[in-house]
């Protein structure tokens, strides 16, 4: 209506302008043509005033004549438009000019209206009945539509065959009765739906690794689930569920992981006991036994600790290979972390007759690290140094700031060294210097794992070695401030990384 009013005003302005201009022309002609009998100024201004007044009234009247048919047509269009409810029917009898034209045009419009109404009605009918909806029905993904009481109002063919129940038997059944779903965490479909119903008008969510708890020989189903909730849907359908089947992929993953997880559990239980009993011995016997037995006890203890570290290595390599290693980087003082890790390793060094020399620069900025993972890296590097240090007695551990502002930590031994031919393969899985296999233990996972962890921290792991003179392994870490800034730029609040680089907008965990 605003546009029409605007149009009317513009019309009035134009018409009034024309009339006024004509009046001025007329008055000017009058003034100049009769020089002798010029009208008085009062008369002239009176005539001008009357002319303006008449001009205004005339402009309004003419505009009205023009507007009326347009108004009627406008009204007719709004009247039949489905989005504008309660608009009055246009009245033709008020139209003074062009009534026939308008009447005939309106007839046409209403005819059009009837046709579109029919189409809309059919569409409405079809929309209500999803079962006749070609797209919903032929979608190759299982699709469920639920009403406010979480009863199934529609399930497509794919849904029926996926859960192994006929469509007809699904309708009006409660979704929870039909589908017994397990979720990997307490963030489940029903908790989401309850929350959605309390809060927003619409909401959507998705879940990974949902398991359909099966009955009666029906094969196991593992899938991702996506759901959409809309409280005000006029068709009584509030919630839509779609399932993305990943049974094959997830069950394979689960088997791979669960084999490792199971082995790890089986290894850890005796390890817990060994460490427990060793501690009891240490507490009770340390000052009673002769030095040789005390030394054996230390060795036992150190071996148990090493075994524990290996178990963690196995677990983490499995995670990296499954793309499941995820690190949570937190601010920490590198000196504090490094010192405590080195201290924990001193027993291991001692029983092998080595001394750990630790020198840490005092000017180090705080680092962004996943403490446990970085401890594993230092553990692996020092463990390697102990193993490969031959007859030399000292292992140097140093931390300093590089010219690029990174925190560099080096672990140096003066032992066997590594030949240049095998240096490039050092960080691959299961690689070990074959010539030394007989002399040293190890599962060849440590460096592969360390490389992945350091890379995920945004740092670099390197090695320098000369055969016969020992090796230096070093890695860089990024100052926390720099990481935090980068995270801010990337728009992610948390410093979470995967083994193969950044993971954005992801959960917070170290997997």
């Amino acid at each position, binding site marked *: 209506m605003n546009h029409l009013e605007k149009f009317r005003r513009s019309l009035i302005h134009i018409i009034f302008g024309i009339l006024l201009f004509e009046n001025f022309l007329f008055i000017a002609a009058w003034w100049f043509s009769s020089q002798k009998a010029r009208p008085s100024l009062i008369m002239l201004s009176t005539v001008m005033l009357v002319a303006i007044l008449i001009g205004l009234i005339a402009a309004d009247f003419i505009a009205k004549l023009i507007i009326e048919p347009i108004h009627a047509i406008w009204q007719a269009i709004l009247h039949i438009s489905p989005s504008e409810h309660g608009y009055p029917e246009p009245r033709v009898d008020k139209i003074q000019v062009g009534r026939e034209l308008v009447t005939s045009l309106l007839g046409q419009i209403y005819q059009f209206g009837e046709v579109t109404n029919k189409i809309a009605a059919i569409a409405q009918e079809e929309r209500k009945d999803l079962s006749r909806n070609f797209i919903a029905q032929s979608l190759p993904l299982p699709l469920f539509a639920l009403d406010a009481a979480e009863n199934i109002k529609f399930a497509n063919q794919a849904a029926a065959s996926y859960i192994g129940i006929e469509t007809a038997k699904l309708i009006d059944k409660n979704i929870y009765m039909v589908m017994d779903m397990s979720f990997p965490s307490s963030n489940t479909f029903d908790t989401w739906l309850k929350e959605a119903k309390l809060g927003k008008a619409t909401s959507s969510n998705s879940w990974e690794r949902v398991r359909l708890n099966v009955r009666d020989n029906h094969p196991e189903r593992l899938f991702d689930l996506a759901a959409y909730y809309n409280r005000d849907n006029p068709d009584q359908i509030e919630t839509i569920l779609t399932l993305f089947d990943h049974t094959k992929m997830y069950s394979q993953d689960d088997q791979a992981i669960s084999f490792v997880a199971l082995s790890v559990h089986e290894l*850890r239980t005796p390890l817990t006991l060994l460490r427990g009993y060793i501690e009891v011995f240490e507490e009770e016997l340390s000052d009673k036994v002769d030095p040789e037995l005390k030394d054996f006890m230390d060795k036992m203890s150190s071996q148990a600790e090493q075994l524990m570290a290996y178990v963690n290595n196995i677990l983490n390599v499995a995670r990296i290979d499954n793309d499941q290693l995820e690190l949570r980087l937190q601010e920490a003082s590198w000196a504090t972390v490094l010192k405590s890790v080195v201290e924990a390793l001193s027993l291991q060094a001692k029983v092998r007759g080595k001394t750990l020399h630790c020198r840490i620069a005092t000017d180090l900025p705080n680092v962004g690290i996943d403490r446990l993972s970085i401890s594993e890296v230092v553990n692996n590097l020092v463990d390697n140094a102990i193993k490969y240090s031959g007859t030399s007695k000292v292992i140097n551990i140093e931390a300093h700031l590089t010219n690029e502002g990174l925190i560099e930590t080096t672990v140096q031994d003066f032992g066997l060294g590594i030949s240049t031919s095998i240096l490039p393969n050092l960080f691959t899985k299961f690689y070990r210097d074959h010539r030394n296999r007989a002399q040293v233990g190890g599962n060849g996972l440590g460096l592969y794992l360390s490389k992945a962890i350091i890379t995920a921290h945004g740092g670099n792991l390197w090695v320098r070695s000369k055969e016969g003179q020992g090796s230096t392994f070093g890695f860089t870490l990024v100052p926390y401030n720099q990481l935090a800034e980068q995270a801010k730029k990337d728009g992610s609040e948390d410093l979470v990384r995967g083994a193969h680089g950044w993971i954005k907008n992801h959960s917070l965990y170290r997997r």
Partner: protein
Amino acid sequence: MEENQPTQSPSHSILCIEDEQFIGELYARALGKAGYQVTVIADGVKALEAAQTNTYDIILLDLMIPNLTGIEILRSLRNPARVPPIRAKIIIITNLEQREEVRADIEKQADGYLVKAEMTPSELVKFIQRLPQN
């Protein structure tokens, strides 16, 4: 009242829900030496019954135990509808590896999550002694 005493006070009682007998013994020994009263229960159902008496200050909860899983016990004890709420601090002790979202979910409900193989009994004692006071 007893509840208001600091948890690290040696007289406090600990329920250790652990089905591996030797581990239970080791923990009971170390905690007992540190002055705690320790009860070890290996069965899930019996353990939940004992925990519900609300007489413990600290509950050590293994996740893999017979008859009821540790997660089920944790959920039941931490159920917000429970009146009165269980006042004990609940520490998960496990050697099981979980998918991290599961672990985080468990950690949220518990007061601590420890991997048994990664600590000695005396380290467990230290952890318990360092628990914040109520």
